[in-house]
Each structure stands twice: as structure tokens, then as C-alpha cells.
């Protein structure tokens, strides 16, 4: 035992040395060590250590404290704590109203902060995140300006060659649609596969479980899997060195990395190596990331991008009628950047702002509640502080005592709130589609939130009553001449603040609801009900089978119609853009247009209206795919009188226009309808759409059987058109849900406060009501006495809230191409609801005041 002599905890020893008066230290420390040694002899070490710590704290007394004459403040805490505890437990109703309000609001605040923290963490986990930039392309054409997340696949290598400050570049491209992955009899369609150049791991750092980042992707047909994916296909086997079938080709597993955190835009399950050195040899476009040698190299690099663009893209752009320019953005800014075509899912900065504002509102409402309720009971406290003052307490001590009380309250509520938000976390995750874990509560980034809450509520809200009571003249306080009434303006304005926040939230909720309704319920110009969208495997050898599958589906009794759609041609997808030669009144131009490829049933399936001309027919498809339809917007833009006389040229091909369809909202209502070319083509279908009467499992079973007959090893996976459609409005829906919940929260908290206030104001006026009743006042005049002042304050709040919420809602609505107009009802309805709820929360006390025995009331006080 000699080598490992047990010592008491060093920090406790240090603490003792810190606080203990030097004249006592030598002996006391010795004593405690001696006790420690004795305890080790008779019992467990942990126990001895704990008891040592206990001893150190027990000896934290005035007489042992360094310079002990000046530290009464420090030791008064015990007393403050006691008196705070007593006064809080004396006013159980008030205390529980305050704690309930604070708990609810703090947990709201915590949840929203977790969300916002998670949003702001996006892609910051990469070691070199501050030097990684993404290069994107801006297309200018006469018809539109489009931002796309892609760039020329040669750009990366070019930049690296031209500029020494570019240390590394990587091109990555997501695998189109769903790819069937199989191993050892297990087969699933996978969406999150990327083809990346071998430089990928020199730029992006990941946590490796096995494999070597420097060589993992250097050979063709290699794949690096995430842990999740590896478990799915290999179970307990060792995946490294095994082969896995990706869309018909065998790949060698060369690495396993930990699942990337959910706060990343680049979510993938597997990274595939390229077949050649550069992606550019097999694809024209890809997403390009570059890594600078130093973070400062990025300054002014845009000019060099322009140069590169001129050098490599200009010859091409002259040909296509569009001009290109490159833009770059820091990796960590990508999440909140502008939405681009073919981009990864975006964060919504405005959602984050909206949520933060809501969180602060809620916190503010609860603070106000607290201030209000503690003011209201300060009469009793004034007597206490009066006595303290007479006994010699300094104002600073009175303040310290009050702050102790508010910190105690805040801490209690905080503990409750953490429990509550832990319970609510799954709900928030579901609404926002995030994966925030419970462990977050114990992480370092959570600490500032807790500190903020403690400071904001404990000190900010607590200091109002503290300053007030500490400034009182003790004699007045004892006489009771200082009534709470003297601070009525303050109390009133606090109520106004509180209800202003409530009403703003309510009005915004109403407006957001109406807007989301407009987005989801108004007619997009096509029928999206009861349509199954079946994924077609991305395998050209299977494409020729698809018309047969489609025909067999069409013959089923419960199927009304089915149709094949080509690349990104199902409504809600990002449409392809190509350049066409068109004739206008001023001659022939090259123009870039959105286009989709569909078969003869597409228009009927979606019930898209035909303005003139005819639909694409089966014959068109069988011939040479040279017929197209266009939408009204295109005709209008080109100013064509006779659209059927026009042809569209693309490269060497020429298309004849056979029909004009009514404008429909291919994309969400965020955007207005753009010109569109509808190709008749079924040569490379991506989705098979089936319109059915009332879907059920049996019918799906029947369809799956047919599917297996043709494509026996390909899984039958589908999604409802509705789901695609609603996914476009995910962020609006999230705002809607959160606003709804939090405006209710705000109302509940505010009404808790109102309830408490009314309780106090009626109890102060008990005598008055008694006299009034004896003199003949009826129930209505009594209750109106109580209700009038509060309802007037809420009315004032409504007047303040209306313009603020109008401004906020207008700002939010500005980003929609189609939006509701804000009308009177958006304001009136929420205000009426709040008035009604506020009135209800006062009812109990009005009832008590009206029905109390008048004689008893007069004897009151």
C-alpha cells in the first residue's frame, strides 16, 4: 500500500487552503487529514473522500474565513436562503403560479435554443471547415436567372492547376434516383449514395472505424460505407474487403466511417469511387468543393473564378444562349445560403429567426409574470425588509436577499424545465425533422443557455422588486403607507407588455395558418389525389420493360390511369433546364427552358387542362419523340399567335409543338409559374405513377406481384404524390406547428399571471366591494369593476400588437409568390380569443367577489 497512499481530494484541500484563515489553517487541515486517515482505516475510501469534502464545507464558517470581519455578506446567504424559502412557501399560490409560468417558458426557450444551436452547427464539425468552399454556378438567360448547386465538372481540377492557393478540390455527384444495393440476399433501394473523387477525404474529415482515408477511394469500384449502412448489409460480419452490389456492379468495401452527425447538409450512406481519375470524364456537372491553403486565400478569389469562367465556359455559353458565372460560398454558410437547383436540403434562416424571436417572447412574458406577481406581494415583504433595515441591513443586503429569492425560484423552475423539455424533445424532433439527442442537455454548448436563463430571469426580473424594496423608507414600509397601488403604472405596463407579446404570437399564428392553407389547399392546376409514385430502378436495361409494367397496371380494375415520367418530371422535383433555339418576332434566339419528359397519359393522369391542340399520343412516342407540348406561360412569353407553327431546336434535333396546356404549379407556390416544355418521351423513365381508387394493402400486394413478375429482384417502393407535395411546405408547417404551440403557451403563462394579479387586486378591494354591495351594487357592476381595468389593458396591448405583427407577417409573406392578403379578421379573431380567455381567467375571482358575504367582506383587514 506504500506506493498508493490515499489522499483526500486535492480540489477540496485547495478550497480549504483558499478560504481558511492562515492562523487556523495548519491545525485545521491537519485535523481533517487525520480524520480522513482514520476513516480510511475503518471504511471505504469513497466514503472517506466524501466525508472529507463534507468537512471542508462544514468548516466554511465566519470564524474560519480569511479576513472574516468583512464577509458577513457571504454568510448572510444562509439567512437569505432561509427567509426566501419561508416567504415562498408561505405564498403557495403565488409561488406555484410563478414557477409554473417560468417552467413552461424556460422549457420552451430551451427547446428552441436546442433547435437553433443545432441549425447553426451545420457542417462545422469538419476539421478544415473554415477553408472549404463550394463553387456554384449562376445561369443568366433571357428567361430566367437560375442558381444551381452544380458546376462544370472540370472546374475543380482547373482551379487547382491555375491557382496555387487551392490546395485540393473534389467533385462529388449524387447517384440519380434510387439505386438498388444488395449483398448476400439483402436488397434495398438506397438514395444517399455519392460518387466522389479520391481527394474527398483530404478535404472532409470523418471519424474512421476501419480503413485508411488516404487510399480508400483511390481504386475504381471502391466504396466507403457509414456504420449504419455497414450494419444494414453486413450485420456482424466484417465488411472491409467484402464486395457489395451497387446497381448491378460489384464494389469493394474499403472503409467504414462513423455515421456523420445529423447537422450536416451532406448526408450520405455510402461514398463510391470514380471510375476514372476525375468525375469530369464521365459526367458534365458535379458539385465542386475546393480547399484553400489558408482561410485568408478566399478573399478576392471571386475575381479568379470569373477569370476561370471566361476561360473555360464562355465559348460554350456563346453557343447555348446563356451566360454563366461562378459563385463560391463557405461550407458552413451553405446550409443557410440561397436555395439552388439540385441543392442539398436547406436550413431556413427565417425559421430560425422566427423561432428565436418566439423564444425570447416567451421568456419575456414569463419574466414579466414574475415581476408582476412578486410586486403584488411585496407589501408583506416590505414589512420584512423594513425590519431588516431597522436592524441595520444595508440596501445592498436587502437587494442580495431579494436576488437570492429570485435565483432560488429560477433554479427550481430551471430544473423542472429541463425535465419537461427532455419529455418534449421527441415531439420537437418529429416536427422539425431533427435528431437532437437528450445528451445535449449535458453538453458544453448548453451551458450558455442555462447561464443566460439564470441571468435573464434571476437577475433581470429579480432586480425590479429588489431595487424597489431596498429603496423604501423603513418606517413607511412598517406603517404600510406604501401600498402597491403607488406602482400601479408599472404593473399596468407590464401587463400590457405581456399581452402585446401574446397577441402578436396569436395574430402571426393565424396568418401563418391561412398562408399554409393557401399553399396546400389551393388548386395547383393538377390533381394530386390518390396517386402512387413508384420508383423505377436506375438501370437502363430495365427501362424497356417499363411500358409493359405500366400497361399491366392500367388493366387492373382499381387503377384509373398510369403514366411513366422521365428525369425529374414528377411535379415538385427540380426540373431539367436545356437550351432551345426558338423563333420570336425578332428572329431566332437561344433560350434556356425548364423541361420534363412524359408519356401520353401524364396530362390525363394529373387532369392538367388542355388549352388548344392535342395531347401527346402513343404514336408520337413510338415514332421519334419529336413532339412536345408547352404551357401557356411559354406561349405568352414568346408572344406567339400560332404556337403550332413554331418549332423548337435543341442541338441537331427539332421538336414540333402539338399542344398547349394550362399553366399548373409544377413547383411549390413559393415560385411563380415558369415557361415549360413537355417532351413526349418514355425512353428513360424515372417514376411510374399510378392513379388508383382508394388504396389498401391488398391492392398494393396485387401491384407488387405484377412488378415482381417483370423485375423480380427489384424492390417495389413507392411514395404518395401527396407526400411529395406536402414536403415542399415542410418548413412552413414546422413554423405553423411551433407557433401554434407557443402562442398557446404564451396565453397560458399570461393568464396565470392575470389570475394571480386579479387575486391580489380583488383581495385588496374586498372591503370596498362589501360596502358597494351593501349600498346596492349588483353582480354586474361589481364584476365590471374588476374586469374593466384588465380588459382595457389588453385592449391597449392589442393596439400596440397589431402594427408589429402586421410588419412581421408582411416580411415573412414577402418570399411567397402567392400569398394571402392580410385582412381585418386576422387581427380581430385572435384579439377576441385572447379577450375571452383573459375574461375566463378572471371569472373565478369575480364570482368570489360577487357571491361573498358582504358583512364578512367589510370585516376584512
Amino acid at each position, binding site marked *: 500500500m506504500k506506493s498508493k497512499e490515499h489522499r483526500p481530494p486535492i480540489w477540496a484541500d485547495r478550497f480549504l487552503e483558499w478560504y481558511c484563515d492562515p492562523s*487556523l489553517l*495548519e*491545525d*485545521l*487541515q*491537519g*485535523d481533517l*487529514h*487525520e*480524520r480522513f*486517515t*482514520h476513516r480510511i482505516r475503518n471504511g471505504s475510501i469513497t466514503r472517506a473522500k466524501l466525508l472529507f469534502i463534507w*468537512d471542508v464545507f*462544514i*468548516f466554511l*464558517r465566519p*470564524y474560519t474565513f480569511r479576513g472574516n470581519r468583512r464577509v458577513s455578506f457571504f454568510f448572510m446567504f444562509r439567512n437569505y436562503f432561509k427567509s426566501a424559502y419561508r416567504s415562498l412557501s408561505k405564498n403557495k399560490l403565488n409561488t406555484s403560479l410563478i414557477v409554473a409560468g417560468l417552467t413552461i417558458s424556460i422549457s420552451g426557450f430551451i427547446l428552441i435554443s436546442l433547435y437553433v444551436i443545432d441549425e447553426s452547427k451545420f457542417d462545422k464539425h469538419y476539421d478544415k471547415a473554415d477553408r472549404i468552399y463550394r463553387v456554384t454556378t449562376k445561369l443568366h438567360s433571357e428567361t430566367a436567372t437560375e442558381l444551381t448547386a452544380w458546376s462544370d465538372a472540370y472546374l475543380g481540377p482547373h482551379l487547382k492547376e491555375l491557382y496555387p492557393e487551392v490546395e485540393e478540390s473534389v467533385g462529388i455527384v449524387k447517384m440519380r434516383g434510387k439505386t438498388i444495393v444488395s449483398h448476400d440476399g439483402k436488397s434495398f433501394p438506397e438514395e444517399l449514395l455519392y460518387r466522389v473523387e479520391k481527394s474527398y477525404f483530404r478535404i472532409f474529415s470523418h471519424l474512421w472505424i476501419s480503413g485508411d482515408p488516404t487510399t480508400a477511394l483511390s481504386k475504381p469500384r471502391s466504396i466507403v460505407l457509414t456504420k449504419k449502412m455497414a450494419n444494414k448489409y453486413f450485420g456482424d460480419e466484417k465488411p472491409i474487403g467484402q464486395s457489395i452490389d451497387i446497381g448491378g456492379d460489384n464494389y469493394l468495401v474499403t472503409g467504414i466511417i462513423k455515421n456523420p452527425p445529423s447537422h450536416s447538409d451532406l448526408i450520405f450512406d455510402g461514398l463510391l469511387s470514380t471510375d476514372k481519375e476525375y468525375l469530369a470524364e464521365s459526367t458534365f456537372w458535379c458539385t465542386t468543393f475546393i480547399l484553400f491553403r489558408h482561410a485568408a486565400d478566399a478573399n478576392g478569389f471571386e475575381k479568379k473564378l470569373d477569370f476561370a469562367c471566361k476561360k473555360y465556359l464562355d465559348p460554350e455559353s456563346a453557343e447555348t444562349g446563356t451566360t454563366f458565372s461562378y459563385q463560391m460560398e463557405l461550407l458552413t454558410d451553405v446550409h443557410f445560403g440561397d436555395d439552388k437547383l439540385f441543392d442539398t436540403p436547406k436550413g431556413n434562416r427565417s425559421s430560425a429567426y422566427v423561432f428565436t424571436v418566439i423564444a425570447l417572447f416567451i421568456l419575456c412574458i414569463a419574466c414579466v409574470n414574475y415581476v408582476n406577481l412578486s410586486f403584488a406581494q411585496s407589501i408583506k415583504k416590505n414589512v420584512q425588509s423594513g425590519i431588516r433595515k431597522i436592524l441595520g441591513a444595508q440596501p445592498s443586503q436587502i437587494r442580495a436577499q431579494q436576488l437570492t429569492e429570485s435565483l432560488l425560484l429560477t433554479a427550481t423552475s430551471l430544473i423542472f424545465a429541463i425535465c419537461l423539455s427532455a419529455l418534449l424533445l421527441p415531439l420537437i424532433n418529429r416536427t422539425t425533422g431533427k435528431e437532437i439527442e437528450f445528451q445535449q442537455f449535458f453538453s458544453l454548448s448548453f451551458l450558455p443557455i442555462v447561464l443566460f436563463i439564470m441571468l435573464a430571469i434571476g437577475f433581470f426580473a429579480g432586480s425590479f422588486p429588489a431595487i424597489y424594496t431596498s429603496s423604501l423608507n423603513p418606517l413607511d414600509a412598517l406603517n404600510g403607507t406604501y401600498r402597491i397601488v403607488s406602482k400601479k403604472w408599472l404593473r399596468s405596463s407590464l401587463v400590457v407588455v405581456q399581452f402585446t407579446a401574446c397577441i402578436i404570437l396569436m395574430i402571426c399564428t393565424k396568418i401563418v395558418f391561412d398562408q399554409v392553407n393557401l399553399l396546400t389547399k389551393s388548386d395547383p392546376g393538377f390533381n394530386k389525389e390518390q396517386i402512387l409514385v413508384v420508383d423505377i430502378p436506375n438501370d437502363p436495361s430495365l427501362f424497356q420493360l417499363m411500358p409493359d409494367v405500366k400497361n399491366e397496371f392500367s388493366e387492373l380494375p382499381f387503377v384509373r390511369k398510369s403514366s411513366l415520367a422521365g428525369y425529374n418530371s414528377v411535379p415538385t422535383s427540380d426540373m431539367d433546364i436545356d437550351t432551345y433555339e426558338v423563333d420570336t418576332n425578332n428572329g431566332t434566339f437561344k433560350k434556356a427552358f425548364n423541361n420534363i419528359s412524359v408519356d401520353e397519359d401524364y396530362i390525363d393522369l394529373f387532369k392538367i387542362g388542355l388549352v388548344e391542340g392535342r395531347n401527346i399520343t402513343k404514336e408520337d412516342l413510338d415514332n421519334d419523340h419529336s413532339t412536345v407540348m408547352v404551357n401557356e406561360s411559354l406561349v405568352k412569353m414568346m408572344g406567339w399567335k400560332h404556337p403550332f407553327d413554331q418549332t423548337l431546336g435543341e442541338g441537331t434535333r427539332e421538336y414540333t409543338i402539338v399542344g398547349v396546356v394550362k399553366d399548373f404549379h409544377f413547383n411549390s407556390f413559393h415560385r411563380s409559374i415558369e415557361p415549360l416544355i413537355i417532351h413526349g418521351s418514355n425512353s428513360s423513365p424515372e417514376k411510374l405513377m399510378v392513379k388508383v381508387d382508394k388504396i389498401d394493402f391488398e391492392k398494393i400486394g396485387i401491384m407488387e406481384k405484377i412488378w415482381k413478375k417483370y423485375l423480380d429482384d427489384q424492390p417495389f417502393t413507392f411514395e404518395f404524390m401527396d407526400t411529395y407535395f406536402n414536403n415542399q411546405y415542410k418548413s412552413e408547417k414546422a413554423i405553423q406547428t411551433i407557433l401554434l404551440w407557443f402562442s398557446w403557451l404564451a396565453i397560458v403563462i399570461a393568464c396565470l399571471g392575470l389570475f394571480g394579479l386579479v387575486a391580489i387586486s380583488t383581495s385588496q378591494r374586498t372591503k370596498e366591494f362589501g360596502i358597494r354591495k351593501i349600498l346596492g351594487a349588483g353582480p354586474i357592476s361589481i364584476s365590471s369593476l374588476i374586469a374593466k381595468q384588465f380588459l382595457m389593458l389588453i385592449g391597449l396591448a392589442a393596439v400596440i400588437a397589431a402594427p408589429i405583427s402586421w410588419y412581421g407577417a408582411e416580411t415573412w409573406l414577402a418570399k411567397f409568390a402567392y400569398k394571402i392578403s392580410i385582412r381585418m379578421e386576422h387581427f380581430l379573431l385572435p384579439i377576441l380569443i385572447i379577450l375571452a380567455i383573459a375574461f375566463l381567467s378572471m371569472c373565478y375571482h369575480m364570482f368570489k367577489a360577487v357571491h361573498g358575504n358582504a358583512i364578512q367582506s367589510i370585516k376584512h383587514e
Partner: protein
Amino acid sequence: MKGTNLGEFEELVLLAVGILNDEAYSIAITKEINRITKRKVIFPVVHSALNRLEEKGFVESKLGGATKERGGRSKRLFTISAGGKKALLRVKAQRDELWSLIPKVVFKNA
């Protein structure tokens, strides 16, 4: 102005200091009181009582007698001062006088 009165507990502590003579330091005193009075007196209380007694001038202390189990730190060894002795005697005299004044009859009935 601090009182120079000797409290009941302080009296115990002071007596224990006397009993232990050369070895009177806080832990030993606590043990001694516990042993004789069968009370559960805790160490911090004795420590602060000793401190009070020294302030009142009833005990004197000096450092000494370091041991290994104390991490080589000295003990504060207490001895009864002249004032302490006087106070103890005064208390004892008061007690004796009070005892002598109780009529014998009282104990017969108890």
C-alpha cells in the same frame, strides 16, 4: 463586548482540555467528551467552541506534535489559561453553593 461567561458546553470543553493536559487538541478533545458524557458531540462544534474559548481568553494554544497521519501538519495544543482556571473555579463555586442550599427534603421525595 464579548461576554466572559462560561457556557455549559464551553465548560465541558474546558474541562476536557484540562483532563488531556499535554495532548489537548481538537480531535482528542472531541473523543474525550464523547467518551465521558456519552453525547454525540461533533468535531466542528468543538472546534468552534475552542476558538470561542481562546477569544475569551480561557485557553491558550501553541502549535506542535505533527504526525504522519496529519500529512505532517502540526496540532494546535490547548492549555487552560489563568483566566480559564478562574472561570472554571467560579462556575464550580457557584454550583457548590447552589448545591448546599438545596434542602435535604427535596431529594427524599424525588
